[in-house]
């Protein structure tokens, strides 16, 4: 069985700036992984390469499929910005996802929406920034995708919203799915992580198990602070 993600010799340049430098990593399925690093460390660039939003050098295979139209069927990407048409109603957003993604679970989407208490006929532009982000998260997480890429899902939202987001991530529908969450708010999500990746300045510094860190009597947050203290 193919790995959830297999990345070989991945390089990404913005002009002369090297955003990702020879990244090699294999990620197996069924894990929740934290992509951890300070701002500007290349987390978003990494996600965009996998989601097919950026061109790159090297090879990325998603469940054995190269990045393209086919891989996009199994990758569910939540960018750090609102990418939905704000003139749409919430129900129209779900209809849109249902039409374009075969794996979109409409019942699951409305179930999550009900917990939010948002009117399905409300237009996105009438919702608060936090609620818009939550609706977007619901649309992304209601897909039965193989790989979820969540770029800063808890950045800039209040603690109650963080709780909702973490709950939504934890109650993912398909058990075999891989979820990669980028954030620098490690303490908030550490409890749900299986593995972590430290990234900084284009380099992948380490990739390991959260359990191993805990077995050493430390937290990932503490290790993160040790690793990035010198940067």
């Amino acid at each position: 069985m193919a790995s959830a993600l297999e990345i070989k010799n991945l390089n990404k340049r913005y002009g002369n700036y090297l955003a990702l430098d020879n990244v090699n990593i294999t990620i197996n399925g069924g894990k929740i992984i934290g992509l951890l690093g300070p701002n500007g460390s290349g987390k978003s660039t990494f996600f965009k390469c996998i989601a097919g939003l950026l061109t790159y050098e090297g090879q990325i295979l998603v469940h054995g499929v190269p990045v393209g139209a086919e891989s996009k069927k199994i990758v569910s990407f939540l960018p750090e910005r609102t990418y939905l048409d704000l003139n749409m109603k919430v129900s129209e957003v779900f209809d849109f996802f249902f039409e374009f993604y075969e794996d979109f679970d409409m019942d699951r989407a409305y179930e999550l929406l009900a917990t939010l208490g948002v009117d399905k006929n409300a237009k996105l532009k009438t919702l608060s920034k936090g609620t818009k982000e939550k609706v977007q998260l619901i649309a992304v997480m209601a897909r039965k995708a193989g790989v979820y890429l969540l770029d800063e899902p808890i950045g800039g939202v209040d603690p109650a919203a963080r709780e909702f987001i973490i709950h939504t991530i934890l109650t993912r529908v398909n058990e075999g799915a891989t979820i990669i969450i980028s954030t620098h708010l490690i303490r908030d999500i550490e409890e749900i992580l299986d593995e972590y990746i430290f990234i900084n300045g284009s380099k992948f510094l380490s990739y390991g198990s959260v359990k191993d860190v805990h077995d050493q009597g430390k937290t990932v947050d503490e290790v993160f602070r040790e690793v990035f203290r010198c940067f």
Partner: protein
Amino acid sequence: MFLKIYKHSFLAPLKTLVPLFIANFALAILGGISVRIANTIEDNVSLATFFGTIAGLSSVGLTGLAFGEFVLVISAFKKAVATDEAYLTYTLPATAGQQLGARTLSIATWYVIISVVSIIATVTYSAFSGEPSFIVDVSPSIELNPEATWIIIEVVIMAIVMVASILLHVIFGVLLSQKLSTKTKTKSANAMTVIIGFAEGFVLLIVFITLVVGLLATENSAVLNASPHVIIWTITVTFGMLGGLCYYLSYKMMSRWLNLA
């Protein structure tokens, strides 16, 4: 996937365009009635001038509306491919060819619809004015022989290719502006898109008009002796090739040069 993208990109500007189409007809009726009133009250100069002005403004308004409607269609395209919505657009499970083809076809469809609405509005204007349509006046006077018929067909083909080419230039302009405005994120990106597209189309037209007129003005010009078929097809093929080049570059931009930084 092609049809799904086509459907969504076609429906995106619909809610905005329908009221504008209604405005087209309202303006046409207003203008037509104004002409009729102005003609019937010629004795009263002030009122005749007033209604004549309304009629004139209505004509200008009709032209402006048609232009504005097309700009809205292009803006909807730009919104999908060159704003934050592009994150959704480009993560849909579709190839660059499907994305570009469906969206190009959608813009072309809207162009045809806007043109038809404008023509019907003009006819409505004419009908309400109480004056016979120039089409009715001119049509019977045209005597078509086989040669003239063939030239008319060629000119129609040329016009279609020219319009298609200009549309492809506009689409190329939109995608180019995406590349140019990625870093600056200027709010004028929309305006720049339209300006690039129309400027390209305008420059092309000027170049061709200058070329043809210049060649015709030159003594012993081959153009003077050339068959009109040669001239028409030269223009048609050139515009077709330029349009094709724009489509190719747009495709490259959507696939290989995609960079949503």
